[in-house]
C-alpha cells in the first residue's frame, strides 16, 4: 500500500499507510505501536490522546492523520532521552502524580509544552495548561504540584 502521509514521529521520519482521514490517535497506536497515547472518549473531552504537534498540544482523536503531513509529532514515548527522565517526568514520578496512568499523555505533555513555552509559567498558567485533561483517579492536585516542582527544577538549571 502506498504511503498516504509522510511525517516525523518522535524524531523519526515515517511514511504512514493508513487512510489520511484516520484519526491520528488510531494511526499512532495501530500502525506505529505507540500505545502510550490513549483513547478515552473520541470526543475531545478527556485529553488522554494528547500529542504534541510542532511542540503544541492537540487531542489526536480529533486530528486526521493527513493533517500532520510534514509536521513534527511527539507522543509521550518521545519526550526525553532513552533511560533518562525529563525534569517533568521526574517531577511526576516524585510527586506520585499518576496512578493508573491513563491520563498521562495529556497531563505530562501539557505540562511539558507549557514549560517548554515558558519555564517561568505561573501556577495559574500551569493549571490552565491542564484544563483539557480529565483524570479519573483524581490526581489533579498532584499533577499541578508536579508541574510546579518541574518548573522549579528547570529554573534552577
Amino acid at each position, binding site marked *: 500500500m502506498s504511503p498516504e502521509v509522510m511525517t516525523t514521529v518522535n524524531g523519526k521520519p515515517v511514511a504512514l499507510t493508513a*487512510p489520511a482521514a484516520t*484519526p491520528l490517535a488510531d494511526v499512532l497506536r495501530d500502525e506505529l505501536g505507540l500505545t502510550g497515547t490513549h483513547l478515552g472518549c473520541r470526543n475531545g*473531552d478527556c485529553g488522554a490522546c494528547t500529542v504534541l504537534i510542532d511542540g503544541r498540544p492537540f487531542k489526536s482523536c480529533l486530528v486526521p492523520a493527513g493533517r500532520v503531513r510534514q509536521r513534527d509529532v511527539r507522543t509521550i514515548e518521545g519526550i526525553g532521552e532513552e533511560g533518562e527522565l525529563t525534569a517533568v517526568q521526574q517531577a511526576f514520578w516524585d510527586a506520585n502524580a499518576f496512578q493508573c496512568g491513563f491520563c498521562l499523555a495529556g497531563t505530562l505533555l501539557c505540562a511539558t509544552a507549557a514549560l517548554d513555552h515558558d519555564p517561568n509559567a505561573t501556577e495559574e498558567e500551569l493549571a490552565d*495548561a491542564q*484544563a*483539557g485533561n480529565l483524570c479519573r483517579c483524581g490526581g489533579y492536585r498532584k499533577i499541578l504540584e508536579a508541574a510546579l516542582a518541574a518548573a522549579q527544577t528547570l529554573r534552577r538549571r
Partner: protein
Amino acid sequence: MTSAATDGTTRAAPATSGRPVYLAPLDLSDALAMLAEDAAGTAILGGGTVVMPRLATGAERPGRLLDLAAVPGLADVTTAGGTSTLGATVTYATLLGRSVHPLLRQVARGITGGPQIRNQGTVGGSLCHANPASDLPAALAALGARVTLERPGARRTLSLADFVVGPYQTAIAPGEILTAVEIPDGDARYGYVKIKHGHSSWPLAVAAARISRAGRHAITVTLGAAVTRPTSIEINLDGELGASLTPSQAVVVAETVRAAGGDWWADELATARYRRRVCGVLAVRAIDDALRKEPSA
C-alpha cells in the same frame, strides 16, 4: 465545519477503506472546486472538534473530508481600513493574540477543552456548527460581525443574525464555504461573562454587553448559549452609568432581559426556565464587567 445538513443524515458511501477520502486543498479556489464536485457527500473540516467525533460515532458518514487547514490566509487575523478580518480557520489560540479584540481574547481564554482545543477549534467551525450552547457566536454578534460565504465565482456576506438562523442551523448553502468573519472597528466598551457547570462543561449561558461611548451610552446585551440563536437586547436605563449598575438599574436590566422573549434553549445542561432566570443575572454582570474594565482598544 459540516455542510448544510447537520441532522446526521447519511450521505454518500465512504471509500472502501471505511474512511472518507481525505482532501487537503492548498488554495481556496481548489477547495471550492473540490467541494462543488460533491457538496452533499463532503464534510468540511475546520478544527475537527465537531466533525471527527461525528465520524467516530457514525452520526455522519460523508464520502469525503475536505480539510481547510492547508489553505493559506484562512488561519490569519488581518486588520485594514476599519475592519478586522478573521479567517475561517483562525483558532482560539490565535484569538489570544494581542491585536485581537479584547472581547474575543476573553472568549478564547474561557473556551472549554484546554490548550489542546484552543489550538484546534476554529472560528468558522464554531459558527457553522451553530450549537446554541456555544460561546463564540454571541460574542461575534455583539461585535456586529458579518460572515463571508463563498462558492466558485460568487461571494456573499451576511450578518450574524442572518447567518445563524436557529439551533444548529445556518444559512450556509450546499457548495459554500464560510471563509471569513469581518468585524467593524468600533469604539464601545465590552463586557463578557459565561457560566458553566464545571471546568469541562459546555457553557450554560453567556452574555456580552456593549456600551457605546457616544451620547446616551446605549447598552446592548447579546445572549448566547442560552437561546436558540444569539439574541441582542437593547436596554434602556434611567440615570447615569457609574462604576457599576445601581440596584434599581440592575433590576431593570434583569427584567428587560427575561422579558425579551427570546427562544430560550433547553438541553441536558439546563432547562429553558433556568437559563431565562440566569440570563437576567448574567446581563447585569456583563454590563458591570464592561463598566469596570479598561477602555477597549
